[in-house]
């Protein structure tokens, strides 16, 4: 496609090119390889203690996806104490560090999806997801994680990051208003929403979309808070924006409203200018 300036852009067409080979040469070995890859990429929820393999009763499930959302939950919520890790979601894809799936509990500091439960109120759970979940694993992730908690009286809250460039608005946004929150909720969600709803034509994709779609179809009340920020690394100002999202849940979830700078420093990263051609 040629643009107005005369440059030719190679446009990525969303059409999938037909794979004629797909239907022709399907022999045993191909099938076997395909099955093995599917098995390797499957998503599994694993529990720390053996007893919790059945459906866990849960009234509030909070899922955090993205560096700032997970930084927020770690610095503002988990740092208050009273949370214990009860399980994790094990999966493997090309971006995982290990070459094959590991079924042992994740080491802190490594990208992972860890499930926490509040000690004094075990029906409140949190899932902090720092690892990359591939496109073909998103649906399975939502099914498995939401499948291991009981649907009755469940409310799901998802916190997720997004870059500001993805947000489309008819009037240009100046730097002053970022970072900001936008929300999307399912039809059955009746609680208060802490920020404006996401206007058309904006959409959400990824893990938060997979979870929200699952909740919408299964009529589980759920809300996604998407934080649009112009900063790409974990940053304390962006993390603070999520405070508004959890204020509605303050009865269930204790939040440290002003964490100390030591705690914040553990989860934020100052962007250092990498060496470039000019220095």
């Amino acid at each position, binding site marked *: 496609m040629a643009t107005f300036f005369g440059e030719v852009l190679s446009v990525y067409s969303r059409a999938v090119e037909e794979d004629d080979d797909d239907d022709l040469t399907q022999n045993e070995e191909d099938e076997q390889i395909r099955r093995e890859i599917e098995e390797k990429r499957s998503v599994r929820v694993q529990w720390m203690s053996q007893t919790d393999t059945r459906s866990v009763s849960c009234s509030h499930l909070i899922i955090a996806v993205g560096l700032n959302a997970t930084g927020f939950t770690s610095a503002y919520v988990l740092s208050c104490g009273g949370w214990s890790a009860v399980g994790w979601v094990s999966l493997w894809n090309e971006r995982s560090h290990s070459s094959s799936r590991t079924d042992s509990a994740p080491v802190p500091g490594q990208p992972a999806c860890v499930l926490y439960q509040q000690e004094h109120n075990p029906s409140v759970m949190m899932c902090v997801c720092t690892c990359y979940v591939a496109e073909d694993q998103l649906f399975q992730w939502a099914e498995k994680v939401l499948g291991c908690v009981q649907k009755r009286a469940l409310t799901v809250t998802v916190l997720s990051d997004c870059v500001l460039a993805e947000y489309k608005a008819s009037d*240009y946004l100046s730097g002053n208003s970022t970072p900001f929150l936008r929300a999307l909720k399912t039809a059955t969600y009746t609680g208060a929403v802490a920020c404006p709803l996401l206007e058309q034509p904006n959409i959400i994709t990824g893990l938060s979309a997979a979870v929200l779609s699952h909740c919408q179809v299964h009529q589980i009340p759920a809300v996604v808070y998407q934080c649009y920020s112009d900063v790409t690394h974990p940053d304390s100002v962006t993390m603070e924006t999520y405070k508004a999202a959890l204020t509605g849940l303050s009865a269930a979830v204790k939040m440290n409203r002003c964490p100390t700078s030591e705690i914040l420093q553990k989860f934020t990263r100052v962007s250092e200018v990498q060496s470039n051609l000019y220095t």
Partner: protein
Amino acid sequence: FISTGSGDPSFKGFTLIMPAVSVGNVGQLALDLIISTLNMPKVGYLHTDCLIPMAGNNPYATSAEDASQLSTNAEVYSHSDLKLVVLQIRTPIIQTKVRSFRKSLVSWIKSCGLVKTVLLSSSHAYQRDDRQLLGTSLRYLLTPSLQKVEGQRVEELGWREMERISVFPDIPDSEQRLYIPGGGVTKALYTDCCTEDISMAVALIFCSEGDNIADAFMLINHLNDWLRLLEKPTQGSVQWRVPPSWSLLFGSGIPPLIF
């Protein structure tokens, strides 16, 4: 398929229109126009692991109240007066799951008891051969079961059937096969429906990536000539309602600082 309300709606005797995720997303844009103009209510979701997940607020909102209805990546809308059911697909099919998606679609179509299915699609304009460069850029295909019923009507409308391409272009008399580059699952789904004896029509347009709104209008007016979804006024063409989700297709407003 999961219904929004209680109980499964029946689509027996209905016509299904669905898009193929193809060049310029023309099929999907055309369906947006149908759903938006006819104000079709949503009756269910296609909850499948074969499509990339996505969610957003109501793309066909007419007022502030219905703007907050959530929309997912594959939804089913229906219009009982016109006996029409529409499947809108909003995200690409995951590469490794194309075959299983086709299989689930075909089995769902069969289970619905539909009169016919229409697949809206598109193909790369740059891949046309000499014959295809001339005349209209719209083409159709009918499965054998639908050919008997609608074949004559389509002839009367002056539609052009999609030409078959030689497997080896320079060798005369080589085998002719169907070739729809950029059509996504169109060819495979069409062949599946031929084998399964499902009445399906494919309406496609040759186009390129870019601002495909005009192509969507062309395709939908072409389809309307056949299906008569909306009456054509004597002067001018049918007024299709553009949904609000089509705003800002090419990014946000322009920052004033650059001037």
